[in-house]
């Protein structure tokens, strides 16, 4: 839904421009990894360039990662296939997840919270609404976001040739671990 992306982007921009009591948690070096457990081959890769922002005020968030920032493939050929054939990184360079955390949690108060992040997940240019359960651990100044979820390839129209069907699972497991720090605005 373009509207949600728009709102998400708007919040993202507001994070840097808005003044007042806006309390924003932000990172540029979050960790994200994926893993495909196929019968013949396990593919896994990760990136440390996950950018993320959570707006404490209205609980909106935006996470973004560049597809080409993933590293750690088994082979160079695997990486090439991943970029060019499956995710078409030239055409769709980014994956985004933007929306709103359903629960209202005061992240400036230290504690461990479980939350549901509901938003639009865009991978391979295809947007799908998802609700992702996350664990939020706050120490008052920073929040650690932990999440693990599975994405069916069909949801994002990622087509795998039949010949490599055995090498790629129909569902990919994603793990996110990011530490967002509080940016106090004046």
């Amino acid at each position, binding site marked *: 839904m373009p509207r949600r992306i728009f709102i998400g982007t708007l919040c993202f921009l507001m994070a840097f421009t808005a003044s007042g009591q806006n309390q924003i948690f932000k990172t540029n070096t979050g960790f994200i990894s994926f893993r495909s457990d196929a019968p013949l081959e396990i593919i896994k890769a990760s990136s440390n360039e996950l950018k993320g922002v959570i707006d404490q005020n209205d609980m909106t968030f935006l996470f973004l990662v560049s597809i080409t920032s993933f590293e750690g493939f088994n082979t160079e050929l695997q990486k090439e296939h991943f970029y060019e054939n499956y995710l078409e990184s030239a055409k769709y360079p980014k994956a985004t997840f933007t929306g709103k955390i359903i629960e209202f949690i005061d992240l400036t108060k230290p504690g461990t919270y479980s939350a549901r992040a509901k938003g639009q997940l865009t991978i391979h240019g295809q947007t799908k609404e998802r*609700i992702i359960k996350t664990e939020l651990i706050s120490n008052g100044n920073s929040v650690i976001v932990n999440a693990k979820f599975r994405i069916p390839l069909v949801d994002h129209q990622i087509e795998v040739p039949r010949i490599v069907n055995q090498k790629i699972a129909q569902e990919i497991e994603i793990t996110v671990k990011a530490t967002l720090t509080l940016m106090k605005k004046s």
Partner: protein
Amino acid sequence: MNWFFMIIFISLTVSGRAQEYYFRQMPSDYGRDIQEISILFQDSDHMMWIGTDNGLYSFDGRQYRYTPLPGGSTQTVSTISESPKGEKWVGYQDGSIQIITSKGHSESINTNSIKGFPISKILFQKNGDVFIATYGKGLWVIHKNQFTRLRFQNLEHIDDIYDALIDRQGRLWLGTDNGVWIYHTYPEESIDNLHRKNGLPDEIVKELEQQSNGDIWIGIYDYGLVRYSSVGKSINDTILSKAEEGQVVSLVNGNGDEVWVGFEKSINHYSYNKKVRSIKLPDDLNEHITNLFFDRTGNLWVSAGNKLFVANTQLDLRIPGVKEIQAIAVMNNKLWLGCKKGLFSMDQESGSLTQHLNEENLNIWSIYADPQGCLWIGTSDQGLYIYDPERNGVKHLTEHNGISNNTIPNIAGKANQTWLATLGGITEITWTDHPVKDELSITLFQEKYDFPAGFVYDIYVADDQKVWFATDGLGLYYLDGQELHHFTKPMLKLGEDSFDLRTIYSVTADAQNNIWVSGTKGNIFKLDPKGNLLEHISSTVGSENSLVTSGQGEIVIVSEGSIQVQNQITGISMFGATTGLTSFSPNINSLALDSDGSIWIADTEKVLHYKSIGWDSSHYVRMQWVDLTLTSKYLSDPIKLSSDSNFLDFHFTGVWYTDPGSVRYRYMLKEHDEDWIYTREGRAVYSKLSQGTYTFVVAGSHNDDFSKSVPIQRQIIVSPPFYLTWWFILCSLLFISFLAYLYMRERIRRISRFHQLEKEKTTFQLNAIHAQVNPHFLFNSFNTLSGIIEEDQVAAVDYVDQLSSFFRGVLLHRDSELISLSEEINIMRNYTYILKKRYGDNIVINEYIETLEGFIAPLSLQLLVENAIKHNIVSDVKPLTITITIDHKRLMVSNPIQPKIQSSSESTGFGLSSLLTRYQYLTSSCIEILNDGETFTVSIPVLQLNTIT
């Protein structure tokens, strides 16, 4: 977290053997590109509506009909509801709402304030308010045509609504990310919340469905579903989904208290006894399930992607895993299967199969479960076994023990009495407490009642305690107390037809104590308690039918390839190929009646289970009009047609989703057709109807019993042609009267003119004679004559001849209206001859005659010449030259003007004016008189025959 423990403590996991339904794939020729069916809905006329990512369709089981949005755009349909007025309200993904009226018009309502936000539900409150739940913009209400957002308390903050319903108390339930919100306005506006603390396993509520008893099922994202009891006001049963089943996508009510639960990858059936069964899905259903729907005639609809499947849930299939099943009984929640190789039991819940009696070579033909919990097993040539599965006791009886025959096709009984139908007559067995433990009392009918020994196929214990016996060759017998009666006559008559009823394969009785029997060649007869034939059903499918009465009082007819169900209200309904009964050939009477009234039917490797939906009159083909709104003439009711364009093209359809291909129609245009016209095509065309009022009636049927069908009709008024309308007739009469008046007036005028003309003519003739014989002319003539006589007698004779010839001409033509030019010239020449004799060379007549064809008024030329002489000087000094010119058109007489000093006193005063009058009546051309001072010319028209009026 408490929800976590709850999952552990109260959870009913999906269990049980797969129950199979025959899923029939519906046609996929939508006519447009459809990727996904987004919603299924059935309206009160039973029509199914299919909402897709490319617009809305109605579907009668055979054909999809696209219903365009008024604006022409195609959007994903997100919800469909029906208002109390019968309007279909269709909500779209983009926030638009379309209303389709019961007559088929469609219109949009203004929902600009929620533009771009999907409509998740449209609900109708009893007071006329319409609630519109959106995904992203919260809850809206249309109250007295005002479209506003409800902002009461927490409603303000609820943006995403997944599902909504109005419960029996009129409360509005909303499924949201924060549990269920229950909003009500009575007795005062308030809002409640159901969330984890109330026992919800999670708070993302995606589906809500109200059961017939008022309980509400709540479908939860990632977890499954729970039931909220309306009585206990608490969360009760929790059904958890397994990870491989995916999310809850749909929750629908089935028959009674059952609920169908659609997960992305499975369908489960939940009944009130807390049994959850997983439904085996067809192989073609390889995509994620997106929708479930349970229609009003017991069909379960499943959509996945753009595929649509329908299963009739009245008939399900179990495959126990044994071969050659020949007999079936149901006892202790188990199916007992008598096979060619032994006895097996199948647990209805788990599906687990157990072999009994340890006898592999037992060829079982019949099983009867008695009230004491013992099974009576009839075999082929191996006698009778009485088996107590609880105590594992067995008793074996053969002909040696006194039973009539070792081959036993059927067994039936009541209380502590059992009857064996054998190939050697009937054996009655009684006992005191327990048939295995107790001593049995065996009686042979041939001994007790003198019953003629023979094959007996079926025994039926009726509700009125009569026991019926179907024999081969000897018809039907019944036992009433201690008396055996022979029931049927060998031949039965129904109208002209007569039937042989000696051989009967199966017998049953209905609630009215009428007896139903199946005879040879597939014939089925219904007889009243006195044995009179009431009804004959000729089965086209099998030749040997088995009959059984279900717990709902229906007669179930089992034949090869079909199961037919006859009920009092809608007649016969057939389950055949469309319910998967393609290779179906069960043994005769291998049926069992379950305690819930359902019927089990064994067929070699399969067991079919028929469960009635409780037939009522709505379970019949429903008729509706199709596409009538496309032409404006059908909009009015009655339909009004003009006489010159009275072409009628009715499109209609009959909805019967159990077997859409079986629907036939009969229609009639009353006052036009003399009899019903039968067709399978949903169309009737009429043209060139004469004026009058007609009624078009059409009914549909799936079993050719049109008396059960509720017909639809339209009245048509054909206006008379314009020449038969009262105003036209009136105008025509007026016009004709006017014409008649004009004619009469003209005629009167003509007559008066004619009279005038006659008068003129008479006057003219009188005057002409008067003129010609005037004494002066005679005097002059005779004077001339006397002069000639003296000089030349021959010339005198000639002169007299000319004179007499002139007078003869005058006399001859004075009555005529016209004279030919040649005759007139002759008269004129006679006349000028006479003149020449008198005036000699003093008068010169020049004639320039181009033609002699044509007519003029008689004596007019003579008159003109006479006139010229009368008014001019004729003398030696001044001779008079008269010039006569005749062409096709005109005759002209001219002379130089030499006026006499004194006008002749003999002038009659008539002359030119008389001529003028006469010509006025003869022709439209006028007489022209030219006087240029030197020459006097009179020109008269020459009439040709074709110009004479």
